[in-house]
């Protein structure tokens, strides 16, 4: 602080200081384009009222991708086993119903999140000492182990035949699930909004800032005294809990569950969604999940055997020409238009 007293600041330096401070102070303020995904979610309800079960799947995909964005996009933890926590949340609700007749949905979602979060703490504490390929392998191994354990006790889990006929109480004992999935859509959308608010506060907080520090340069984080392992385990648990919430909603939406939720495919898919949309920027999860799931649906109707080609092509194009994902393309386009307008 002594430095600024010794030397009088020029007008431009004072201005630069003010601009820099303002940027940090205002960075987390609400921007109008942020309302867009939520308005579109409501519009989807009005335009496709008979496709709301599908709509719920898309929103669950968004939540799942968002949970991965927190750990991959912000903290830089590479995971190809994120389905493990989605599956834990899903099975918490399913087994709760089968074993104890637990059919109240909201407490089920909370339980799914808590159990998955707890698993995140335990697993994260062990595996987050490693980075890079070793970590990647460990995340895959954990999901595979869970799936195999579930298969060993298929008398409880229903194995790959699944647990059918899961039914849940009306929300708040009042809003019953309808044939078109309208209630369910609003239910998932509201949970997503709550989760999103939490994640958004998280990433703009000092803790979120520390996560980006770990992503950008973990060596320096150690050198400046950051408890890196504790921070990583914390964010891993939060990401796991959100994936668990998404899994719990998945079970409640489908009323049916098999061990294939733990499949490697599921983990890979959520990563593809996120990379397609753009990592480390919150809304990449929205764009990526919506585009992926809608295209998957469209292509698979177009060609039930070759639909993956379309998705693959899109991913190759994104990786080659849009390194920051589709959200990056949108941002660049907005910047370009703004520049043309001003000149």
């Amino acid at each position, binding site marked *: *602080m002594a*430095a*600024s007293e010794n*030397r009088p*600041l020029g007008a*431009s*330096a004072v201005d*630069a*200081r003010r*601009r*820099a*401070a303002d*940027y*940090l*102070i*205002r*960075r*987390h303020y609400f921007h109008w384009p942020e309302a867009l995904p939520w308005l579109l979610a409501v519009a989807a309800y009005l335009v496709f009222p008979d496709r709301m079960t599908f709509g719920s799947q898309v929103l669950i995909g968004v939540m799942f991708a968002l949970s991965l964005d927190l750990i991959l996009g912000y903290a830089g933890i590479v995971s190809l086993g994120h389905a493990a926590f989605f599956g834990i949340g899903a099975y918490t609700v399913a087994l709760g119903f089968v074993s104890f007749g637990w059919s109240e949905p909201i407490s089920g979602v909370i339980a799914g999140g808590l159990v998955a979060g707890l698993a995140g703490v335990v697993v994260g504490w062990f595996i987050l000492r490693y980075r890079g390929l070793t970590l990647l392998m460990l995340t895959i191994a954990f999901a595979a182990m869970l799936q195999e354990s579930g298969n060993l006790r298929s008398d409880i889990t229903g194995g790959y035949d699944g647990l059918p006929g899961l039914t849940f109480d009306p929300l708040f004992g009042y809003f019953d699930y309808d044939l078109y999935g309208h209630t369910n859509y609003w239910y998932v959308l509201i949970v997503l909004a709550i989760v999103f608010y939490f994640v958004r*506060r*998280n990433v*703009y*907080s*000092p*803790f*979120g*800032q*520390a996560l*980006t*520090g770990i*992503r*950008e*340069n973990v*060596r*320096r*984080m*150690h*050198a*400046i*005294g*950051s*408890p*890196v392992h504790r*921070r990583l385990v914390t964010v891993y648990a939060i990401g796991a809990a959100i994936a668990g919430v998404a899994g719990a909603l998945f079970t409640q939406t489908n009323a049916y569950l098999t061990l294939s939720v733990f499949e490697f495919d599921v983990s890979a898919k959520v990563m593809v969604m996120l990379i397609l949309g753009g990592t480390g920027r919150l809304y990449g999860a929205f764009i990526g999940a919506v585009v992926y799931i809608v295209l998957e649906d469209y292509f698979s109707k177009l060609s039930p055997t070759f639909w993956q080609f379309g998705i693959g092509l899109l991913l190759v194009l994104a990786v080659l020409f849009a390194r920051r994902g589709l959200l990056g393309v949108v941002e660049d386009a907005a910047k370009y238009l703004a520049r043309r307008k001003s000149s």
Partner: protein
Amino acid sequence: MTAALQVQGLNRSFGALHVTRDVDLALERGARRALIGPNGAGKTTLVNLITGVLKPSSGKVVLDGADITATSQAERARRGLARTFQINQLFRGLTVLENICMVIGERDAHNNNMWRSAGAKRVVIDEALDHLDSLRLTEDALKLVRELPYGRQRLVEIAIALAQNPRVLLLDEPAAGVPSSESHLILDVVAALDPDIAILIIEHDMDVVMRFAKQITVMVQGAVFTEGAPAEIMANEDVRAVYLGQETRHGGDGYG
């Protein structure tokens, strides 16, 4: 009086390669010591052993009277031991201002907060801007570090260490690879630091060493060769033979 930093009988081997041999070194409070020696003498390894990047094979590191040999890197940093790196270690995808706020946030444990906005603590931002100001980085505050030229990135490297408010500061060739206008700025800022901070600087430029240091330690082949006041070291025939006599390359080559 206990020294700010004391290194006792420090050894480190990588397999058969004995890179640090029985090193004893003390930094009194307010010390201004230079560590010199030919490339490959083990200077950076010593810094890595002191800061906990590497664990010693034997020996002790004592900070303010407390044995920290077994503690983590981060714990040492929290106890007031800061360093700069010979090759920049920055948060390249973040702005210059965010780089410094990150450090202050960790130092004061604000970074545990998961709810409040990172911009909510005005004192943190003001302090970060003061640090940037002292290194003439204010104009670049909102630029991403990776967009800055190397010399200015080097200033960020120094600013991060200073923002830790260290009691012991280890500078590993702070002015290496920097244009002279900026290297003077770096050395002026270091010279103007709180006289209570103990500073160890690794440096190849003998002009800088003579101007800055009150004591010099010479390392050769992993061991302390000799130490003393600058004038003594300059006059020492053996030192001239092993170090000063040879062609010194300004800036080092990254293996010092």
